């Protein structure tokens, strides 16, 4: 049997579409973990990235923290959290959030820091407050890049959230973990395929958000 046969038989088996271990349920769990982890990471990473990017200070500290966070093995962190905190969603959230913060933080910082200084100078000279300069001048100009940082973080979260299954939680990782244990490779391939589809979905969502939120005046400029 090749991979395509595995995929076909996994998705055509009607038993896989029903119940607590059915595809809709597992996908929904996966999306919930991912959205929660991305929201927390964004809530931490965006404000710090925006403020450090605006003031231009703290860049070195950010780079250090991010490199350190990237060096942490996600799986090891999961096991450690599980040992510390026991069963539950929290031991999964910690490694996912730690994984997602560096791309958000560094990209946001760089995006704001590298905004053309002359509109910022003009805005300040016109009497705009620093907060307004950040939100009305720098963020709109940097938005495309900021979104790309969120997008990389989201893709990493979606593909890594499969580890939740190792600590008895759901998500499409369930199929991979159970399939490996049961030597049911159809299930493993099915779970992997679902993960890939979810990652593609992330791309589509971010593309749509970018179309809607980024001003045509800026979009065109980045492309040029």
């Amino acid at each position, binding site marked *: 049997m090749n991979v395509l046969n595995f995929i076909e038989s996994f998705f055509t088996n009607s038993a896989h579409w029903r119940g607590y271990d059915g595809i809709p349920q597992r996908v929904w769990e996966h999306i919930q973990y991912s959205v929660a982890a991305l929201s927390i990471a964004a809530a931490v990473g965006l404000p710090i990235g925006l403020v450090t990017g605006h003031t231009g200070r703290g860049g070195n500290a950010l780079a250090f923290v991010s490199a350190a966070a990237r060096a942490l093995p996600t799986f090891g962190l999961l096991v450690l959290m599980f040992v510390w905190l026991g069963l539950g969603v929290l031991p999964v959230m910690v490694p996912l959030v730690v994984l997602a913060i560096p791309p958000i933080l560094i990209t946001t910082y760089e995006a704001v820091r590298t905004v053309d200084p002359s509109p910022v100078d*003009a805005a300040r*000279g*016109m*009497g705009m407050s620093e907060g307004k300069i950040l939100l009305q001048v720098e963020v709109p100009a940097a938005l495309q890049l900021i979104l790309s940082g969120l997008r990389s973080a989201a893709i990493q979260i979606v593909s890594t959230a499969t580890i939740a299954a190792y600590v008895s939680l759901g998500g499409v990782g369930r199929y991979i973990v159970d399939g490996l244990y049961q030597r049911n490779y159809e299930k493993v391939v099915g779970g992997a395929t679902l993960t890939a589809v979810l990652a593609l979905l992330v791309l589509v969502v971010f593309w749509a958000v970018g179309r809607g939120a*980024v*001003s045509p*005046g800026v979009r065109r400029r980045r492309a040029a």
Partner: protein
Amino acid sequence: MIAIEEVSKRYADGTVAVDCLSLQIPNHSITVLVGPSGCGKTTTLRMINRMIEPSSGTIRVDGEDIQHKPVNALRRSMGYVIQNAGLFQHRTILDNIATVPRLLGWSKQRARDRAAELMERVGLDPVMARRYPYQLSGGQQQRVGVARALAADPPILLMDEPFSAVDPVVRRGLQEELLRIQGELGKAIVFVTHDMDEAITVGDRIAVMRTGGKLAQFAAPDELLSSPADQFVEEFLGGDRGIRGLSFLSTRDLELDRSRVFPVGTDRKQLAQSTGPQPHVLITDADGKPLGWADPSVWDGDVEALTPYGQSFEVGRDSLRIALDRAVLSPTGHAVAVDGAGRVLGTAGQERVGAAIRAARQRRAAESPDDPSEDSAQVKAVR
């Protein structure tokens, strides 16, 4: 009126950007700060809207110390134009111009109406309102920058090398536009440039600054050209300040030669008699407009065979610099003088222009040098 009183700017590393500068910047006029890079001209400008805080000294606007005003309110009361326009790429042209009115709490509709009005004032096509900055040329972007600075009708306009990034032809157009707008609005404009020609073109008063942030001379352009304070100013003015100074002398009192102008169809013998030893006569059409030069001893009356006269100058509107230029370029050494309708008033050879220059200099010397005469302002407005 902006009063800069003994203002200095020293940085922590010991660099002195501005050194005890005192300057009175009057209302309804363009004051230019000019000098080589590192002379502190931009620092001076940025201290007026507190983008840079002075180390010592006081700056007053209409008598009030600017330190006593909230910084953002102060900046909103002054238009600010910078080198590359600094437009907000994510906003349409209309919304860029509406920025300060919006900051001041105007409704969106009122701010946009005002922005549309300003687009017209700075000569921008209304179809550009919905466009984004990247869709405009450099010159058009700079017009938007000027419109944005004028949007809330501030009494003061600060311009930091506003036209330095555009090509010379566009720059010329923007300078003329600025003078036209200033003629209508009469703001107190502080204009920073490193280009002496630009300073002379737009400035009512010019402050020449030298490296180290010291004021070298503060004078009207014609006074600067005719009597530079020291060698530094003289060198900064360039090698042809004598010629450039002629821009401020009117052709109004130039004595014209009417003896060599003849309408087309004049009899050849009459031409030869009345011109005597002079080799060339100017032939005009029936309306008195110039056609070209003719040598009466050989010309057969054919209009096609006339020597082109090149460009003419308009008496009263053009300066003696233009008249001299036309005379130098003329194939006969004589410039063609016309009135506002393009009819020939006479001709002026290089000697006549020279005589007019000497006469104007003597008149100028007799007048008070501190009083910039209306005469020079009038000439400046066109050239």
